[in-house]
C-alpha cells in the first residue's frame, strides 16, 4: 500500500534529455519525448529516484493537489493461490516485501495474480520499490518466478535479474565457510520455519 502525496516536476529549461530518469523510474512514469523528460501524472508514485539522480538537478518533488493510495486487496484473490506461490518462493504471505511502503508479500502476490507480470507493474499497483528503491526488487522477482512468470526487462536499468538465495548455496560452499561465521543451515531452518508459520499462526497454533 502506498500513499502518494507528491509528484515529480521537470524544469524544461534544465532538462538535457539524457534519459537517466527514464531508465531508473520504477513505475515507468518517465519518458523523454523530443529531448525533454515528461512525467506521467497517473503513474508517478513520488519515489524521488529521478529527482535524486538527475545530473542537471532539473527535477523537484511537488505536492499533489489530490493525494491517492495504491493498494491491491489480497482478499480479491484465492487465498490458496497466494499460499501456494508464497510456499514456492519460501516466503510468508504476511511478511513485509517493502519496508517503506509496508507492502506485504500477500499484496504483491495478489497483484501478480491480477495480471502484474513485471516488477514495474507490481510497483504501479502496490507501491513496492517506491520508498527507498533499493531493497525490495528480489522479493518481487522471486514471487514472479514462483508464479511461473518470466518478466521482461525494461529498456533502462530498473533491475537486472533474480540473484541467488540461501537455498542456492552449495554444500561445498557451506563447508568452506561455515567455520567463518556464516550460519547458512541454521538460517535456512529459521527462514523455512517463518515461511511455514503463516498457516499455523492464523489458526492460532504457533510452532
Amino acid at each position, binding site marked *: 500500500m*502506498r*500513499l502518494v*502525496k507528491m509528484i515529480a516536476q521537470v524544469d524544461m529549461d534544465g532538462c538535457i534529455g539524457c534519459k537517466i530518469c527514464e*531508465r*531508473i523510474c520504477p513505475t515507468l512514469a518517465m519518458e523523454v519525448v523530443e529531448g525533454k523528460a515528461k512525467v506521467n501524472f497517473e503513474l508517478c508514485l*513520488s*519515489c524521488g*529516484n529521478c529527482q*535524486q*539522480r538527475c545530473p542537471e538537478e532539473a527535477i523537484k*518533488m511537488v505536492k499533489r493537489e489530490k493525494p491517492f493510495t495504491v493498494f491491491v486487496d489480497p482478499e480479491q484473490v484465492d487465498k490458496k493461490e497466494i499460499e501456494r506461490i508464497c510456499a514456492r518462493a519460501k516466503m*510468508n504471505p*504476511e*511478511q*513485509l*516485501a517493502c*519496508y*517503506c*511502503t*509496508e507492502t*506485504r508479500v500477500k499484496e504483491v502476490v495478489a497483484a501478480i495474480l491480477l495480471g502484474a507480470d513485471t516488477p514495474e507493474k507490481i510497483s504501479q499497483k502496490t507501491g513496492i520499490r*517506491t*520508498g*527507498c*528503491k*533499493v*531493497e*525490495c*526488487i*528480489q*522479493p518481487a522477482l*522471486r514471487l514472479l518466478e514462483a508464479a511461473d512468470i518470466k518478466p521482461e526487462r525494461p529498456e533502462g*536499468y530498473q533491475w*537486472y*535479474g533474480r*540473484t*541467488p*538465495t*540461501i537455498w*542456492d*548455496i552449495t554444500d561445498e*560452499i557451506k563447508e568452506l*565457510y561455515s*567455520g*567463518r*561465521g*556464516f*550460519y*547458512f543451515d*541454521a*538460517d*535456512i531452518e*529459521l527462514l523455512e*520455519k*517463518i515461511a511455514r*508459520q*503463516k498457516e499455523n*499462526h492464523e489458526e492460532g497454533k*504457533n*510452532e
Partner: protein
Amino acid sequence: MNKVLNPIPPRRSQYGVDPGFVKKRMAEYPEMKAIYLRELFPELPQVIFPGENGLDKVRQAVHKELEKVDMSMIGPEDSVNICASHHGFTLGGGEPYAELLKAIKDVIEEKTGTKNIRLRAGVGLRFRETEEYIKSFGLDEYFDGQAKGVAPVDEGIPIETEIGTLYGLKSIYDADWIVHAHNSDVREVHFHRQVDRAVKPFAMSYARIDTRSTYHHNLGPRGANFTARAIFSSDFVQSKFAFTAILEMSPLGIIGVDADNDLYSLNDRITVSGCQNYGKVMTLLGEIDECIVGLDFPCPVPYVFAGGVIYANFVGANVDLFDLDNPLPPYTWYTEAFYDSKGKPLFKETPPPNPAIKMVVHNYAWAGYPSAFFSEHIPTIVVGEEQANLFREDPQNLSYMKHSVIAESLDAAMAFAYRGTGTDKVIVFDGAAGGINVSKSLYELLKVKAPEVKTRVDEKLFPKWLKQRGINPEELNKKNEKCR
C-alpha cells in the same frame, strides 16, 4: 562528574531540517554530564583523532602504512578508482576520512606515477549524500574534477560469483584498478554481525539494488554478508583489486590507519579489535535498565551515535548482537519483515526492541532511511513541525509520523518524557567524542556496571565471539608480526 562534551553540530543537508530549526541541543540541560569512555574502560586504545594535529597524524599514518603495500601492479598510465562510502564521512565530523582519501591519492601518484586517479563514493539510501560530502570537503578539486557520487540505482554490470550472478555499479569498476577505502567502525552489527565487516561495501555502496536486495532478503540474517564475500572473491573483482586502506576506529575515535593487499587479513584484524572495543561499550549499554533516549545528530534515525555506537545497536542491546547463536536481532530488516500485519512476530522467539528504552526524544535526526519500525515500537516525540513534515514527505518514512507525537520545543518534549516515563535516566546520541552525554543518574549506573562488563567481555564473550568467526587471536598475532 564531567561537564558535557560538545555534540556534533547540525549539518546542512537535503535530508535533514535546516540547522536553524535546531534551537536547542539535549546536552544543554544542567542535569546532563559526560561520562568518558576511558573512565569506564581505561584499556581502550589511544587515539590519533580527535586530538592535537589529528589530521596531520591521519595523513602521516596513511603514508607510513602504504609504504608496506605493493602497488607494482599499477602502471604509470593506468586508471585507478579509489572507492569510498558515505559512512566514513560520519566519523569525527568527516574530515579524517576525507584526509584518508586525499592521502591515498597522493601516495598512489607518488609510488606509481599515474595521474589518472578518480574518487567513486557510494551511498546508502540517500543518493546525493556523498555528492554533498564531496563538495563540503573539497574532494572534487583535489581529484581534479574526477570525484563522483554513485548510487545503487545507477547503471550496473553483472559479476559472476561462486554463488551465481550478482551486480556491481559500472562506475565503481570502470578503471584498471580499484582501491577500497573504508573504516573499521562496527556500526551496523545487526546487519553484518561483525562477519567480514571490512568486505561489506562490495555488497552495499559499490553494488546495485539487485545485490543489496539479495543481502537483505535472500541470504538470511547470518548469511547476508556472504553477498560481499562472493563479489569480492570473484575473478572479475580480483582482477582489478589493488589494495585496501582503512581508518582504524575505536569507540573513542580514530586509532590509526591499516592497509593491506590482502583484504581478508585486514578483515581478521578488525574483527578482533571491533569485538574487543565496541563489544564492551555495547555490552555495557545493554545493562541500562530504563532510560529516555535523545536523538540529536546529523544522520538518519538508526545511525545517530553515542560512545561510538549507533542508536540501532542500542535498540538491540537487550541481546548480544555479536553472538551468532542469536538468529534475529531485535532490529534488523529481516526482523522487521517478520512482524505480521497485526504487529506480532512470525517467529515467536523474536526478541523485542530494547525494553529499557522508555521513550525517544527525536530532537534532530535525518530522514532518508526507513525508520517507521522505531517509532512504531518505541514511543517517540518529534521536536518541531518542520521535522515532522520532513518525515511525512520522505518516501522512506511514510508512516514514521503515524506512530509519533510532535512537541513544539525540546523543553516541552523533555518535560513530557520525564513525566510519561517516570525515569530520570537519559542518554543522548549526539556524536560527542570521547564519551557519552548522560543524565547524572545514568552516569552512576554505567560507572557501577563497567568493571563487571569488562571482565565478562574479556573472559567469556570475546573468546566466544572470535571462536564463532573462526579466528584464533594468537595465530593472528603471529601472522601480523611476520607481515610487519
